């Protein structure tokens, strides 16, 4: 058995609610078959006293194998951490203490990973992520910090984090399977495809059939702020709630797994240079992309131009 403590800091509970939606595997399955023992979850455990759990793990009576943090780490006001407390104690202090004794530490969601929505300007709470402040290494614990198991904080980014990514990462930790990390310490196996891959609007993108008004069937990359072609996340290869994804439903990808989420600009508009997005699909050169788009537009069949295909 491996003891798991899930702690919320500056959070909306969205990652917890999403965790309950995980199916492959489900949280129940992790508890039943994968050897997880949930010592504490603020919404889900019968235990009503966080203090007794805190005592048990800090005294060493119970080992703390996996620590999950959900939420931004509020350091304000003036570095005191008093914007987010438990029994008058800054949560950031408790997080530091628990991280120091945990076998592995997982940041569940973009808030715990990078600061997230609460770190958007003007960052009223002086919040940060566990080991990153947006894209800059550091955060609450500092860039050099390592868990008892020798790893940095695993950043299961996403707002919310993808349900099955959360449970799969936990399953891998429970099994002792090594988890390779990308340059932002995200678990690489789950951040190695783009949101664009598997998007059912792909054919529209191929032929440069771009929408400039929401509610349509076309691609949303050129005008409507969609970041699918430059955002690594499993949204369209492992569908949300087993059914769909934002881009399939006509909602732009806002890049919520990215350290800069939410970007400080109109979220429904794509910044452009001329008629071409300022940020291109990952790794693409501007000149070649423009040439390709011109050709693609010329090759577009009527059924695409007329938006006949259902995404």
């Amino acid at each position: 058995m491996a003891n798991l403590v899930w702690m919320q800091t500056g959070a909306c509970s969205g990652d917890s609610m999403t965790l309950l939606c995980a199916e492959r595997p489900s949280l129940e399955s992790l508890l039943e078959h994968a050897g997880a023992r949930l010592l504490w979850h603020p919404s889900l455990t019968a235990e009503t006293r966080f203090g007794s759990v805190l005592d048990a793990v800090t005294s060493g009576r119970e080992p703390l194998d996996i620590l999950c943090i959900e939420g931004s780490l509020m350091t304000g006001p003036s570095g005191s951490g008093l914007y987010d407390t438990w029994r008058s104690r800054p949560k950031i202090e408790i997080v530091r203490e628990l991280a120091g004794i945990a076998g592995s530490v997982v940041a569940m969601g973009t808030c715990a990973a990078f600061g997230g929505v609460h770190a958007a300007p003007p960052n009223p709470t002086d919040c940060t992520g566990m080991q990153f402040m947006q894209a800059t290494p550091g955060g609450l614990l500092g860039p050099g910090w390592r868990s008892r198991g020798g790893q940095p904080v695993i950043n299961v980014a996403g707002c919310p984090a993808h349900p099955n990514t959360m449970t799969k990462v936990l399953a891998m930790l429970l099994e002792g399977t090594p988890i390779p990390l990308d340059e932002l310490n995200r678990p690489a196996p789950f951040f190695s495809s783009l949101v664009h891959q598997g998007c059912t609007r792909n054919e529209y993108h191929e032929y440069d059939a771009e929408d400039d008004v929401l509610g349509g069937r076309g691609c949303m990359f050129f005008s409507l702020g969609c970041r699918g072609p430059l955002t690594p996340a499993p949204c369209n290869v492992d569908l949300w709630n087993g059914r769909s994804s934002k881009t399939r439903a006509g909602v732009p990808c806002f890049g919520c797994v990215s350290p800069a989420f939410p970007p400080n600009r109109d979220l429904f508009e794509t910044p452009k240079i001329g008629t071409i997005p300022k940020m291109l699909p990952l790794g693409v050169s501007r000149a070649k992309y423009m040439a390709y788009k011109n050709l693609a537009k010329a090759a577009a069949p009527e059924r695409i131009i007329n938006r006949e295909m259902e995404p």
Partner: protein
Amino acid sequence: MARVTVNIDLNRVEGDLELQVDLEDDVIADARCIGTLYRGFEQILIGRAPRDPLVITPRVCGICGTAHLYATVRALEQLGGIRPPTHAAHIRNLCLMAENLQSDLRQSFLFFTPDFCHPRYAKHPLADAITASFTPFKGRVARECLQVTRRVLEIVAIFGGQWPHSSFMIPGGVTLPANGTRLIEAQDLVSRTRDWMETCVLGDDLDHWLTIERAEDFFQWLESSPTVANAALGLFCRFARSVGLHQLGCGTGHLISYGVNPLPDGSYGGFRPGFYDADKSQVESLDQSRINEHVRHSWFQHYPGGRHPWQGETIPDYMPGNDRYTWSKAPRYDDKVVQTGPLAELRIGGDPLIADLLALEGDNTWLRQFARLRRAAWSIRAMRETLTALKDVLDEPHFADPNIRDWPDGESYGMIEAARGALGHWMRIENGVIDGYQIVTPTAWNASPRDSNGQPGHWERSLIGVRVEDPEDPVEVGHIVRSHDPCLVCTVHFIGRGRRRYPCA
């Protein structure tokens, strides 16, 4: 008389909740709700593009983000003079009902009933049945609830792409139309949810259950067969009433609801909005201009009386050593303390059974929780009706482009009935960007502190006079507070800053 102050922190609510109660001979003489988290959403929104809250405000709350999205889109549509197509209104309503149903079921069987498994009740005659049904992750109802709520939320994903935190409601409609395939899939999910509600929760036909209109008939029904008595609702009711939850936790009698399933013509497909004045025992029409917020007992820069959200200021001003004790504001309706949630929604909307039970026993812990499960049944039926109505407008557009490049300056509001009750967003646009955004959440109403007139908030009032058996482990307080389905993450005004002692009166 010895007066001791006890600090209580509660889990199985959304977010962090700390309470401070003063006990006199084990009876609560005074209570104060303390929010311990400040997140600064209203500041983050200032200066942003008018549509950005469609992405930002769902993230206020992971359990009711669809309701925040709905409030935002209504505020934008009011500002832009936009009337969404009926097709879009039905999709929005369907998805919000799915979210509320999910929340009602999770709150009941994952957050509330686990308290019945407390060691204090180990010798209760129903203890074995309770344990078998409600133990977290292991009890039959608890486990099935996880599966069923997962399924209900698939409805939001079908139309909105994902749950939580989608932004599929946009000024002028929704991003994706319904079609035959999506309708059939959604219908199937509703039918399966209904089956579960009937077999596991009610032990009876849902339509039949909703025809029960009098308290007397309800209590008879409860004992009418072992199937009914041992289903989740029967078990919940019999246990809760046997330990006196129907006599516990009476707060304010005034109720507020913002109305269910708004339609483009301004009418409501579901329970109507309104204010129930307990002094007159009558429902009045709702007037948002009568809502105000007080800061007399909060650590904000003082202003006399209450202010409407458009006039509101949120200027933190920490003042220790006096009778201010919280960072939460106190919303009031006509300066009255009100409660909100399913009980208010159903009473104002005219559910005869809820009206009868309220008249008979007053508001109480059992009734608030019972009303939540009653609403779940109404939601399932209304979801089916909405899908039928949606089928009739499939050929109509799901989106009418409002053609607004530059949003006009002005003030507007969006009000909606979220899972926990009345949710309002008040917005001000100036020079094309957001100049002010105030969110008054259901929990802000319920968990409010004292106001300028010294009236305690609803929770505070519902705790006063309660006898606490074991101050170290105040099970009664847990029942009462959880029956309000608290959502502290939502209560965005809360700026926690540690605890301070409240001078004893």
